[in-house]
């Protein structure tokens, strides 16, 4: 992974000192709440329901064991012994004290981490495929360009006060595991006929109040121009994006208002004027950064196939875990493994300090000391030898990290919701928990098959409910918490991305497990042999699901 040099270290430690002084001035009354707000936000610090919430950046989701141990240490020392991995591959602490935050940032800096631009109206943490570098379908490893983009966007002077937050996702594989069509900018790295990396540029996607699938505004941009082109997009947005209404301030609204063609024309005109700047990326810089992501010291494949086949045949629980949580790898003899943070009864994405320490040890023992955070809020060990899988499974299971549900209904993606977040209209964690309890029969769960279930506690869509095969959105009706259900969304991994359709009026919290059960029952009744839930919804539309759900006696708001 990328390691800081002396220059990177200096920049981050100067940031720590800057924020220490800003916090001091705020606590001394020299800065008003309004003046301090954007400063703390650009360091990931929100004021929340119970306490401040601190969001730590995990650039493109990549972590070392040493960094994870530091996160565990911070959870223990400054918080209540746990952290929450978010859908943007970041980590959130729910209980830090404001006066401790400068010290936490100083601790993070010792392991080359920070909370820079994890909030605020600026370019946020850049996300990518959690299988980057190991996926069999990868064309270009996106991590070097992700790091170059991270550095470019860090403290960009012109784009620190944008109309609204700005999220960029990168993908270099055939499948899109980074939801690039649902970001302010999505970049697809592909290769042209000459084998050179070129970029397909997507702009104006997003979830939130107005979900929109992004538009391709350029099919083939030479990679050297990644920064100059992103700069042109951001300048057009910074100048012309709406600032009068925060619900209409994202770039997707500007693209829609101007029309894709006119927006593209403005970006291209801006780019023509700036494209030959020193920000064109030299090959040497690409090579310097890419060297940090060189493959680890893989061993040649051995004869472990037999042992694995035996273990799979002998142990049903292991084979179930293998089927769901173990993923193909481009190297023979290696696999990627998902350590699940979706154990029923634990808020999705939460990990205790003890679990973080255990995962750090597992990463060191089995996966070259590195791990990734997925946007589905799980942890990934990307480089595990097949012969180690059985042992790893035993250890992960003992730590509550081997729930065999990746891709299944109970692998719920869920925001912190009304229990923690001051933006939320409704709680989301108890809904996730109730659904997980209802579907606790593993055989039934595996029979239902692949299903993404996403829950957001409000329109900000941190739980990505728009792209859930089943999406649940918390809404407020006269001070009571209700839940709107949509089906047919898809994040677009193996097909085009799609936004879910709302099936009808919302439900009370207590009804939600029944509603999900009726949706599943409809699918089970109607599916053909090969169909997943999403396929059946696509084939039949929402009508039969709607009929079954509302035909029953359920409380409807």
């Amino acid at each position: 992974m990328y390691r800081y040099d002396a220059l990177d270290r200096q920049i981050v430690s100067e940031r720590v000192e800057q924020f220490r002084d800003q916090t001091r001035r705020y606590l001394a009354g020299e800065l008003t709440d309004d003046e301090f707000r954007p400063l703390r936000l650009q360091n990931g610090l929100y004021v929340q329901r119970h306490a401040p919430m601190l969001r730590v950046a995990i650039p493109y989701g990549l972590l070392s064991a040493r960094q994870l141990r530091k996160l565990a240490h911070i959870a223990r020392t400054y918080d209540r012994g746990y952290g929450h991995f978010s859908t943007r591959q970041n980590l959130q602490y729910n209980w830090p004290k404001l006066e401790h935050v400068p010290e936490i940032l100083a601790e993070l800096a010792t392991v080359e981490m920070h909370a820079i631009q994890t909030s605020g109206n600026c370019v946020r943490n850049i996300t990518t495929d959690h299988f980057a570098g190991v996926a069999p379908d990868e064309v270009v490893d996106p991590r070097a360009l992700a790091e170059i983009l991270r550095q470019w966007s860090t403290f960009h002077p012109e784009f620190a006060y944008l109309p609204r937050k700005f999220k960029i996702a990168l993908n270099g594989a055939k499948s899109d595991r980074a939801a690039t069509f649902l970001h302010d900018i999505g970049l697809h790295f592909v290769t042209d006929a000459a084998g050179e990396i070129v970029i397909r540029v997507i702009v104006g996607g997003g979830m939130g109040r107005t979900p929109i699938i992004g538009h391709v505004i350029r099919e083939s941009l030479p990679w050297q121009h990644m920064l100059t082109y992103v700069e042109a997009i951001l300048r057009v947005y910074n100048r012309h994006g709406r600032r009068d209404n925060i619900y209409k301030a994202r770039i997707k609204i500007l693209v829609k208002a101007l029309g894709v063609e006119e927006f593209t024309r403005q970006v291209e005109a801006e780019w023509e004027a700036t494209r030959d700047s020193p920000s064109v990326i030299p090959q040497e810089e690409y090579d310097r950064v890419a060297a940090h992501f060189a493959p680890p010291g893989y061993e040649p494949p051995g004869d472990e196939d037999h042992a694995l086949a035996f273990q799979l045949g002998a142990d049903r629980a292991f084979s179930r875990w293998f089927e769901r949580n173990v993923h193909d790898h481009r190297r023979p003899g290696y696999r990627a493994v998902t350590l699940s943070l979706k154990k029923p009864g634990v808020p999705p994405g939460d990990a205790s300090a003890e679990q973080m320490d255990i995962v750090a040890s597992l990463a060191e023992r089995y996966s070259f000391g590195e791990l990734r955070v997925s946007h589905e809020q799980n942890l990934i060990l990307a480089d595990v030898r097949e012969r180690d899988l059985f042992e790893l499974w035993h250890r992960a299971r003992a730590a509550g990290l081997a729930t065999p549900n990746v891709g299944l209904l109970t692998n719920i993606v869920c925001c912190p919701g009304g229990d923690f977040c001051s933006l939320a209209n409704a709680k989301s964690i108890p809904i996730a928990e109730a659904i997980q309890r209802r579907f606790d029969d593993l055989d039934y769960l595996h029979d239902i098959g692949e299903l993404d279930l996403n829950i957001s506690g409000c329109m900000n869509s941190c739980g990505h409910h728009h792209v859930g095969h089943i999406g649940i959105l918390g809404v407020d009706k006269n001070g009571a918490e209700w839940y709107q259900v949509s089906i047919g969304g898809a994040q677009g991994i193996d097909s085009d991305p799609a936004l879910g359709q709302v099936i009808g009026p919302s439900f009370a919290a207590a009804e939600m497990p029944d509603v999900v059960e009726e949706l599943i029952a409809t699918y089970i009744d109607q599916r053909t042999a090969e169909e997943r839930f999403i396929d059946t919804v696509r084939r039949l539309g929402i009508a039969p699901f709607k009929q079954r759900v509302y035909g029953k006696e359920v409380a409807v708001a």
Partner: protein
Amino acid sequence: MPEIIRNGRVEPDDWDESALLTLAQWKLRRLQPIEAGERVGVRLEPADDPAEIASDLDRLQLVAINFPKFADGRGYSSAVLLRTRHGYRGELRAIGDVGRDQLFYLKRSGFDAFALAPHRDPHAAAASLGDFSLRYQGSVDDPLPLFRKRLATAPVR
């Protein structure tokens, strides 16, 4: 006399901000000759397009960009365009809701003068111009990204 930060130093302000012309006023005024010794300054609002004064820049002694709210970042792009696209070399001043925690980014975007709101201490604020000694990306103050400098200083292999 009010004070401003100019080129990193706190100085008495020799301009009366109320004498600055709005873009609309300048569009009328520009047709008349400028007298010897007369100083003309224009004040741009966030929505004003700097291209509209691009051909007049050698006649202006001051361009001020107003920040009605510091969180409205359009003025940063206006400054970048004036300095790079339109080649303005005179004084470029940030006025309005400008505080010390914006100065570093404003300076990088091409501003060389800062008129802070009256209740803010310009002496304390000027220290923030040096918050960072390194920058990852190029901008007006220094167009070379850090990677160009890394390459220039990298040991020959």
